């Protein structure tokens, strides 16, 4: 059913809001079960849980009274799968398919809370029934993730009932293009893809260009290892991003928008395409939207496995069907972009925030964050931290709050060593940076960068040289090969790092590596090369002693670098059970069952660590 006028949109929004409110309040006697459909939960059984719930409810004839929805990522990934029950917002965690029967019998029908599925706060040992009671969620504010985890992402009515297109309505009925840009400028919104460029200024450049054709491009090629913020936003509330794109299109007077999503995100792509189709059906995308004369069409393009296509000009080349190589700038995309027309390229998270800014006003948005970094940022917190998952915190939150209050600290009693932000383009922040406020400029000043939001926590068992090598391997794999410093320089840097981690390097090599790192940083054509050296430089500055140990002592203090460590069975502790010998893939452990301590042959050992992980008596150490 088409929505033909702004007033019709208002009416539709109002009725959807009422429906959604009823769904969650249960005032009409219904219950709603929201199951986290994030990929982490899906991979641990959420899909089965959803189908079992639906089947069981139908068996009991309750399918009209109890709705089951797969919604976007809740964020608390270490505790999934989740079910949130409405009314009441009870959160069940670590749900297994076997629990479905109980949930239906005891909670849905019986109205009782199932104690053993409730999260226990590790600090107080008390149950925390809802997200409001859980530390992980307390410091978060959902702006980019607004609606994600709450609405069914494939249902336009639910999206409209939870804020979608109110901002678009405001823009299209009461604001001129320049006024939209002024509001975004006032809000201080900066690009969330990593660059942190003021969004309003980018839009202004494009608006100032005279052209009959302009484009908005959404960069969904999230490539940083460990990053899944954009994926979660696209899977959780694609309507928010589309709305942001359309507002951007209105602001710069473009008539078409392209989503460029990496092909490794099939669910995000299908949710996006479905959302676009639903919006086209009602006439909110297309020609003469709401009868205002504004034309805007939205297309989806897939990536093809190249990290470099997250670089905006390589992305544009990719959409054009050319090799995904960056272009020299100037001219910038806002002047000559997609098919040489003025184009703005914005990150998924940036566009998702736009409707919120317009809806609530820039004055409201600037209340959050620091002086130069307004609003919130979504982080994918991973690594050696108890509460791995997806979080959205206001800028200015400290790293300590992120890692300890929200992240729950380092598991197994290990000592914090560093947190890597910005992926292969970023650097390490250490103990001395824990109380620094998270914002664009602070992180850069301290030798890292915000990046797209990946945050990997490392502890005493991580070797920082190995970390630098890992990121350099990634860069070498993903370099497009166009410019000399990145194509050859990163390869040479990797060769140095291999030398260092294999105990073949000298102190002169460390100096040469540093010099080369600066050369790659200064001379590369695009952001990939320009930031490729950051992990190396950052770890060399903060953990120089580890580098020296590898080079001078030929030792890896964290016992990670295979050529510089060995697995050793302590003879006094060995209980001669032979379990290690049985799992060894190269049969290099010898000993007599029950009689002699077992012994690893260091010449044959391939350092796989199997023996280390199976020894029931902790008799094997790394040294």
């Amino acid at each position, binding site marked *: 059913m088409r929505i033909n006028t702004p007033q019709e949109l208002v009416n539709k929004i109002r009725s959807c809001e009422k429906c959604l409110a009823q769904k969650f309040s249960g005032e009409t006697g219904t219950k709603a079960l929201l199951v986290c459909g994030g990929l982490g939960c899906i991979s641990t059984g959420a899909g089965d849980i959803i189908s079992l719930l639906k089947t069981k409810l139908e068996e009991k004839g309750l399918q009209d009274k109890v709705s089951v929805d797969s919604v976007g990522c809740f964020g608390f990934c270490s505790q999934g799968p989740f079910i949130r029950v409405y009314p009441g917002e009870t959160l069940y965690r670590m749900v297994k398919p076997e629990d479905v029967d109980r949930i239906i019998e005891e909670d849905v029908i019986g109205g009782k809370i199932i104690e053993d599925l409730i999260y226990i706060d590790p600090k107080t040992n008390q149950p925390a029934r809802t997200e409001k009671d859980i530390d992980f969620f307390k410091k978060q504010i959902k702006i980019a993730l607004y609606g994600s985890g709450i609405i069914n992402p494939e249902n336009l009515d639910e999206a409209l009932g939870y804020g979608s297109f109110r901002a678009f309505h405001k823009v299209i009925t009461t604001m001129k293009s320049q006024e939209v840009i002024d509001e975004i400028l006032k809000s201080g919104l900066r690009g969330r893809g990593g660059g942190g460029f003021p969004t309003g200024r980018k839009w202004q450049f494009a608006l100032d260009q005279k052209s009959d054709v302009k484009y908005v491009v959404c960069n969904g090629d999230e490539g940083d290892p460990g990053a899944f913020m954009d994926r979660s936003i696209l899977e959780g509330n694609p309507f928010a991003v589309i709305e942001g794109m359309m507002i951007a299109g209105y602001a710069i007077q473009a008539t078409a928008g392209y989503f460029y999503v990496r092909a490794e995100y099939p669910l995000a792509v299908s949710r996006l395409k479905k959302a676009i189709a639903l919006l086209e059906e009602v006439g909110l995308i297309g020609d003469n939207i709401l009868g205002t004369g504004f034309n805007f069409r939205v297309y989806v393009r897939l990536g093809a496995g190249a990290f470099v296509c997250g670089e905006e000009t390589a992305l544009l080349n990719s959409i054009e069907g050319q*090799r995904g190589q960056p272009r020299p700038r100037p001219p910038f995309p806002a002047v000559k972009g997609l098919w040489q027309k003025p184009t703005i390229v914005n990150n998924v998270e940036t566009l998702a925030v736009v409707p919120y800014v317009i809806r609530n006003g820039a004055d409201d948005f600037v209340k959050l964050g620091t002086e130069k970094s307004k609003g919130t940022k979504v982080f994918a917190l991973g690594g050696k931290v108890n509460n791995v998952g997806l979080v959205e915190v206001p800028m200015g939150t400290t790293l300590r709050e992120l890692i300890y209050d929200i992240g729950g600290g380092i598991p197994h009693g290990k000592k914090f060593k560093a947190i890597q932000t910005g992926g292969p383009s970023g650097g390490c922040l250490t103990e001395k940076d824990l109380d620094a406020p998270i914002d664009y400029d602070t992180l850069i000043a301290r030798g890292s960068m915000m990046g797209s939001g990946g945050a990997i926590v490392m502890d005493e068992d991580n070797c920082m040289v190995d970390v630098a090598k890992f990121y350099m391997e990634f860069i070498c794999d993903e*370099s497009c090969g*166009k410019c*000399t410093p990145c194509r050859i320089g990163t*390869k040479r840097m990797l060769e140095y790092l291999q030398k260092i981690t294999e105990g073949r390097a000298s102190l002169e090599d460390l100096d040469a590596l540093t010099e080369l790192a600066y050369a790659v940083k200064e001379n590369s054509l695009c952001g990939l090369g320009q930031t490729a050296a950051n992990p190396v430089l950052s770890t060399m500055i903060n953990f120089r002693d580890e580098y020296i140990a590898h080079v001078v002592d030929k030792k890896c203090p964290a016992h990670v670098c295979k050529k510089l460590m060995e697995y050793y069975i302590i003879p006094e502790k060995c209980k001669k059970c032979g379990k290690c010998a049985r799992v060894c893939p190269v049969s290099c452990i010898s000993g007599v069952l029950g009689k002699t301590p077992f012994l690893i042959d260091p010449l044959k050992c391939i350092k796989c660590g199997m023996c280390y992980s199976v020894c029931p008596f902790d008799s094997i150490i790394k040294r």
Partner: protein
Amino acid sequence: MAKLVNIKIEGKSFQVEEGLTILKAAKKCGFEIPSLCAFNDGKCSLASCRVCLVEVKGARGLVASCAYPVNEGMEISISSARAVKARRSSVELLLSNHSKNCQQCSKNGQCELLHVATITGARDDAYTGELTRTTLDRLAPGIVRDTSKCILCGRCVVRCKEAQGIGILGQEFRGFKTIVAPADNRSFMHSPCIQCGQCINVCPTGALSENSEISAVDKAFTTHKYVIVQTAPAVRAAIGEEFGEKIGTPGTGKMVAALHRLGFYRVFDVNFSADLTIIEEANELLLRMKNGGKLPQLTSCSPGWVNYMEYFYPDIIPHASTCKSPHEMGGAIIKSYFAQKHNLDPKDIFVVSIMPCTAKKYEKTRPENAAVENLPDVDAVLTTRELAKIIKRAGIVWNKLPDEDFDDDLIGEYSGAGVIFGVTGGVMEAALRTAYHALTGKEADIVAFKEVRGLENIKEAELDINGTKVRVAVSHGMKNAKPLLDQIRKGTSPYHFIEIMGCPGGCINGGGQPFVKPVFLPNEDDDILQTYIQKRASVLYSEDERQIVRQSHNNKDVIRLYKDFLGEPCGHKAHELLHTSYVSDRVRFPGK
């Protein structure tokens, strides 16, 4: 008059046109910033080599001067320590992934990488490590690709697209493994490459070069009694450049003198054969016009163009003239007429053609071009550059050579019409001079056909010759020629006769000609890349003007050849020796 902006370079103030790249602006102000991938006004500028980096006040990081435009108030530092170090670093990285056998490399002495290495002070073994896996493609007679010498500047990728509209080359694979190659890293022989060699002309290193036949020629002197050489018109227009002469200096006399000192049995001019080609082709055209044959007729002397036709337009093959190209005709006549008159066994004759062309190296291998006892009409093709190499190797000092004439032995004479074959429009003009005579019995006014001269993409002329309307067109470079070919395909072509040359500008800009690299030509004007073709063309046009005989049909040796040996133009014997045929399934069987 473009708007001027004020800039500072090295602290000195200058005024330059707005919008120029820093590289160009600096050149105008007297600074030569080292660069590699930038070429020809930025037409091949990808900003990928990172050698031309300079420091710009206020800019974030260093800036690639080949791509960054100047603006008001810009302050540029070329010699700051940071910029100098950066440029050196880029070159050192390139050297670390580069073949190190400079002595054997065909580009030794003209290698742009070695040049910038010297200028930037690159240290030889600053970085050592793995080398990218090499591909060496020697299958195509015309072009050799050696990726161990490639610096991935991207010039060839752009050039093939720009000159021929084909775009055979592109980057394959990713990161350190990247190489420049035809699709799937196939050989040139297994892709629709026309072997025109335009890519070789822009390559800064020895990654692309012609397949050398110097050793084949050396060997021929031991295996064959009579090694006979013939030179194309375009060679004389440029050969002097290989010896330091300014572009546009005629080199005919010295070239012949050098060849006389290299031990060849006879030194002939392909211009004789060019006249022969004109007689055959003009008669072929008039016959088609009289008997309702396939029109327009297309010239067939450019093997680059013939390759293109066979790959991309096999449906219009019936339009092509069946005439062989001049040097192939020359070879066939040498092994038949010349051999017979001198009582020589054709098997003892080895014909070497000196050509401005790389496609001719392939052309001579075609089985259709073996008219006499199944011997190839031409046995070896050397490019202008290869000729210069063997002249230098023999210790001959170019500027001490006297001017000598080609051998006057049965097939020595040539007309001015033959000379201008080497320029775009030359074949057309030559053919029209003879067609005019055939239709009117009178000689045409020599300036009558000047419309077909020049470098526009497509040149047209409509002539009224004794009541017969003849519409002609001329094009050069396949990208320019494509509209004409599409017209023929659609059946809407209004022309009778079309000259097509494979290389933009004609043979004088062929893939075998001396390289025109401004960085090695300090005595030429800054805009030499825009003017060198015209300069070479003027050598041929002025040689035409100096001739007494200016029409092919007045070439006495040609006349005698027909009278004594061939019989009728386009007759039976002429067809046997001087005509060829084409292959229409090459796109399905490249390399066949």
